[in-house]
Structures are given as C-alpha cells and as structure tokens.
C-alpha cells in the first residue's frame, strides 16, 4: 500500500475532518521532545507520518487498528504529546498517528466510591480542576500536568511529584479500556482488588503504545486538604545526607507527598535564591490534619537524627513558593521551542533511574565520575547533577540532570552530547542492578538495553509483543529494539 491509497482508505474510514495531513502538523508529529533541538532547528532526520487521525469513539479506534493490522501500517498512539524519550518519534514511512483529541470526555466522577472515569484524551488538568471544585484530587501531578492526557500518562507509566504519598499511575488506575491491533476491545472492570490471575491492567499500563491503544481509564480519587499542607526545607552538606534522611522518613512508615534531595549543582538551578552552593533537602506533608501532624513529626525526627549533615533550615515559605511553580505549561514548552530556534542551547536533559537505598549514592558517584572523566565533551557541560524525587520503602530514584553549551551542528546534538551521557548513566545503573528508566518509559532510545533491563524476564515481555502485536504495527521501535531503527539512534 502506498501513501495515497492509505490516505484514501483512512478518509473513507473516518471522514476528511478526522484526517490531518497538514505538513506543519506532520512535521510536529514526526518527533517528540526527545529531539526538541533538532526539531526546532528543522533538521529532523526521521520521516513524517502519513497522517494524524482523530477517532471519536473506541469503535473507530478498533476499525483503524484492524485496518492497519491488515495492511502492515505502523501506528503511533498519541495523547498529550509530552513524551520525552522518543516514544512519539516516527521511524516508518507509512505511519498513522492516532491522536486521542476527540476522546475528551470525563465520563463519571464517583465521589462515594472514590473513583473517576475519563476518556484517553482528557487532560489531567481538566479532571484535576473538576475534582478540586468538589474537594478532591487525583493525587497525580507530573511536571507536564497542564498538558498531559490520560492515555499518555497511563501508557508511559507516568509518575507525579506527590508520588511518595499517592504512588505512580499504576497505583491509581482501577480499570481501563484498550484496543488491540486485531480490533479486540478489552475492558478491565473497576474493583477495589482482585485475585483473578495475573493483574492484566499491567499489560496496558506502561505499554508505550507498543501493544494496544488505551481509550478509557478509571482512576482513584482522594480527599483534598490544601489547608493542611506543610513544607520543610534544609541545606545539607552533601547529597548522601539528604538521601539518608529520605530513607529514615520512609522506613519509619511516613508518606510525605514530596520528599526530595538535590545535589549542589541541581539545587543551584532550582533554588537560586537560597541554595548557598549547598545541597537541598525538602519535604511537603499533605492530607488530613492528623496524618500531616504525624508526618511532620517523622520528618523532624529524621532530620534531628542526621543533624550533623544538616547545615541550616530554610524558610518553609520559600519551599511553598517553589512548590507553587512546579509545573511547566504549554507556554513554557513553546517558549523553550522558540528559544531553541535562535540560541545554541536548550533547557537541558534528564535521565531518570532507580535503585535501592544502598545503591543510589554509589550509582550517583559512579555516574558523575565517569561523565567527568570519560565524556569527550565534558568541557561543554554547564550543568551536571541530580536529585532524588520519588522514594519508596526499599529505595529511591535518581534524576540525573545535565545541560551543555551546544557547539555541534543541531542534527548532531544527540549523538555528540545526550547519547554518550545517557549511555554512561544506563550502563552504571544496570551494572549495579537498578532500573534504567524510573518513570519516563523506555521510548525509542533506551531500547537497546531493554533485554538487559529485564534479564531472564525479557522472555515474558517479548511474548506479550508476539501475542498482542504479531504483525508489529504498534509504535515501531518503542520498548523493543529494531535493527531498522538503529540508523536514527547512532
């Protein structure tokens, strides 16, 4: 099938109004924020998709997928467009981007049973706003909250800034509806718990569009008590102290909604008005008053236990002010994009990993040492550091952040700068038994390590792909390494 015939068939399936072939829209759809700089400079090396299509119902999604499955057309599911790891990047000439634009309805807010059901194209902010009016919250607040949509949030196993209290999206999803390439529509019902075999929600959660298209999601909702929010901030002598305090709080069973420890370098960019060249540790406690009181006590005790590494306490007003400006809006994304057209710089990159408490400090030191000594462009680095921002009883994440002066051609930026740094971070993480991707998903640029990430369990992942997407039409290159896509990676 060629592109003209594909467009004719798709228009016959959906109608002209639901098929977008505008060249600018297709250029935009050919890559996500992973290649943001090359995209802004208009030097992308990947092909544009044939069209972006906007189904209005689950049945239309099913018809589209069946058609693509039958004719071997690559499909990129899209909802929100805030992907950062190449998950939305196109590597095939014949590709349809199926965008959840019209799947935009909040179907039900069930206050008594504390759950809300939305279609995949509902922005998280829209549901959050609707819940706040009633005194509830989703508890989910990724940095992309003003822009991200539920289909994308669930498909990428996203996490929010209050995850230490509310968990990641996988802890919030009660049930969902999704469509497989053969057109099979599956609904996973909404129950408090089940033991009916393996938890099949997880086939859809985090599939990154490589197995199915998520059309509807039901998530838990929580009572919202903003009047009880309490904030703590400290300067610490090193990152290890911050991590020790985080651990102490977590292992004693407390669940602050925000619990973060920053390296000096990373603190400098986030807390320029109070960091004093030191590491920063901060907490936020939220929830009902009794829980907040107990959590605050737990934080204060943990800080007291490690007082030798605490340099000073920071005004909680400063932390609250920082907290109120956490998210980036569409305007922020657009501003960065416009800036990259003119300047040889951007807002930097991140690579997020996780490991147990014992491993994280070693991992951080190993990565920083290797980048400083092995990365050939170390002299161009303008920022290299990291922070822990999502903690668990057995460990935490490390969000490596880095930026650099871009001295190469825009089309070479990833392989000159980002890829060598990312490789060091992934290699060190896997060497120490951590996970190379804490919450951004694998996307298309960490797929060469997917097998290593999962070890012997990769067998299970591979079988899922073979079973649900035997013709390989779902998001070519996402999660699973493809030799044909290597030319875009190296």
């Amino acid at each position: 099938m060629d592109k003209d015939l594909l467009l004719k068939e798709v228009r016959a399936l959906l109608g002209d109004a639901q098929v977008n072939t505008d060249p600018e829209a297709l250029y935009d759809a050919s890559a996500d924020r992973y290649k943001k700089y090359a995209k802004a400079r208009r030097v992308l090396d990947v092909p544009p998709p044939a069209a972006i299509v906007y189904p209005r119902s689950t049945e239309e999604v099913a018809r589209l997928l069946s058609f693509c499955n039958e004719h071997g057309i690559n499909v990129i599911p899209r909802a929100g467009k805030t992907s950062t790891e190449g998950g939305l990047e196109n590597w095939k000439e014949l590709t349809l981007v199926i965008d959840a634009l019209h799947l935009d309805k909040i179907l039900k807010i069930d206050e008594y049973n504390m759950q809300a059901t939305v279609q995949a194209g509902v922005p998280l902010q829209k549901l959050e706003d609707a819940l706040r009016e009633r005194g509830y919250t989703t508890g989910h607040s990724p940095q992309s909250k003003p822009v991200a949509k539920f289909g994308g949030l669930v498909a990428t196993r996203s996490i929010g800034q209050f995850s230490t209290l509310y968990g990641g999206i996988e802890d919030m999803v009660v049930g969902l509806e999704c469509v497989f390439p053969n057109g099979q529509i599956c609904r996973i019902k909404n129950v408090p718990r089940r033991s009916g075999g393996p938890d099949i929600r997880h086939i859809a959660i985090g599939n990154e569009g490589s197995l199915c298209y998520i059309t509807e999601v039901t998530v838990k909702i929580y009572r919202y008590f903003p009047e009880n929010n309490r904030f703590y901030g400290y300067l610490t002598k090193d990152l290890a102290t911050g991590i020790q305090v985080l651990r102490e709080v977590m292992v004693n069973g407390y669940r602050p909604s925000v619990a973060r420890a920053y390296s000096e370098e990373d603190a400098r960019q986030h807390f320029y008005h109070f960091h004093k060249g030191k590491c920063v540790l901060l907490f936020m406690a939220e929830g009902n008053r009794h829980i907040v009181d107990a959590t605050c006590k737990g934080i204060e005790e943990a800080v007291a236990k490690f007082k030798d590494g605490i340099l000073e306490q920071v005004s909680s007003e400063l932390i609250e002010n920082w907290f109120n400006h956490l998210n980036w809006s569409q305007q922020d994304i657009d501003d960065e994009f416009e800036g990259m057209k003119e300047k040889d710089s951007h807002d930097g990159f991140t690579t997020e990993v996780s490991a147990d408490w014992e491993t994280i400090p070693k991992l951080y030191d190993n990565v920083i040492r290797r980048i400083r000594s092995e990365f050939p462009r170390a002299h161009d680095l303008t920022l290299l550091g990291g922070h822990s921002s999502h903690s668990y009883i057995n460990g935490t994440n490390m969000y490596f952040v880095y930026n650099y002066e871009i001295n190469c051609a825009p089309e070479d930026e990833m392989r000159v700068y980002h890829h060598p740094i990312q490789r060091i971070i992934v290699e060190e993480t896997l060497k120490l038994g951590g996970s190379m991707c804490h919450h951004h998903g694998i996307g298309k640029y960490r797929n060469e390590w997917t097998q290593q990430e999962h070890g012997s369990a990769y067998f299970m992942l591979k079988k899922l792909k073979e079973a649900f997407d035997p013709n390989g039409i779902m998001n070519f290159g996402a999660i699973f390494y493809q030799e044909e896509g290597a030319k875009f990676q190296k």
Partner: protein
Amino acid sequence: MRIVCLAKLVPDVDNFQYDHERSALIRENVRLLLNPADATAVAIALKLKADSRAGSVHTVTLGPRSAMPHLEDLLRRGVDRATLISDPAYAGSDTHVTSHILAAFLSRCGFDVIFAGTHTLDGGTGHVGPQVAEILGIPHMAGISHMDPESLSEGRAQVRVESEEASYTFALQLPAVLGFAYAPEPKLPFIRYEALKRDLSGRVEVIDNQALGLAPEQVGVLGSLTRVRKIHVKGFRSPNTRFVRPDDEGIERVYRFLREKGFVR
C-alpha cells in the same frame, strides 16, 4: 593572507566560586569558555577563509593546559593551526607581561594581520591588543564593529568603530592588530560529528618559556608592573522576600512597589 587570532579562554563568570577565607577564586573544575569577543574575531577570520580572502587562520592562546579541548574544537571548526603558550612561570602575569609573552611568540610565527577581541569577560581591561601592537611596532584599532573584506586585498584594513555619538571609519596599513567588539554574527561554524574523530596531531602545539626564552624576572608576578592587592567579590544582598496573594491587596502592593521603583508611572 595569514591571519593570527588571539584567543583567550576565560572562566565562566556566571558560575565561578569564591573562597572567602583565602580571598581567592576556586579554579578547580571551573569551566572555561572562549572569550566571546575573541570568538567573534575567529569567526570573522574563518568567514574570510571560507570566502577565499584568507589563506590560513592560526589561533594563539596564553593559558593553562586545560584550554586544550577548546583549542582542538577551534581546529574542528576550521582553524588551521592552534598554539597554546603555557608555562607555570607565567602564572600571575599582568597584561603588560601577557602582551610581551604573546609578542615574543608573534614576532617569530609569521602573520599578515592579527585579529583579537577588544575586551575579555574576566578582566576587561582591553590592554593586551594595543600593547601587543605597540611592542610589535604595528598599528592597532579597538572596538571594531565592521571590517571591509575587500580592503584586505589592498594591503590595508578599512574598519568601522561605533561610539555612542558617531560611527567612525578608519584605514590601517597592514600588518596591524584589529580588535573586534563582540557581535552575535558571524557565529563560529558548528563542529560536525565527523570532525570529532579527525586526527588533529601536528596542528596544535604547546609552547613553553624554554621555547620563548624570556628571563624569569620578565614574566609572572616578578615581571608584572601591576599588583593585585586584594580581590573583592561583589556580594549580592539577599532581597527581602515578601509573599503576596493574587488578590486585590497583593496586586495593589506589587503595583505600589513597581511605582516606587519607577517601573510603572
């Protein structure tokens, strides 16, 4: 035409750290960057070369060994040859000594014209260009915002210098030292991925005082005519932070503040 560019690596002044107890800059792990006005000078030289108006571009840098990756980058951008003048004996040299060291090398390296940036980010005295010209006995002009490339083929440099009041045009007989003001254009050419693997051996050299043969009392702190008695770091006072809510009272307070400061009338 052989162009020699004086290219200084300066500390990233936005991110330097200061040891208040020892009253000294912490130089370990300080990021270096090519002085912006010098980058303009090199970019103009490379543009002349690309337009076949110059035969070769040679950069000369006085500085620490840690400047080497930046000099290699200049070669990757199209510079033909890079020289790093580096010797522990030169530590503490003021602009007078720096000019003599550079002139000692330049007097024997061969050039038709010398390009430089007028000011540097770190010192900003603007001394070195004129002093080098004085020692070499050739003309100098600082603050150049434009140069007529055609004029070079006539053995002179016709340049424009802007001041707040007027724009002046001068012609200098070559050889001369031309000091350029920083300008966003032309930019240095990008480094291409393939150039990163290019063999640069033989195109970058390190020269020390043994090669230049300057007497110990002529260089470093001993040779300097000026002394740094004390460095003061301009401290930024922490502003009084006041939080206001996005209500009428908060808006009124912000408005009054902006009026007081003259930002709104």
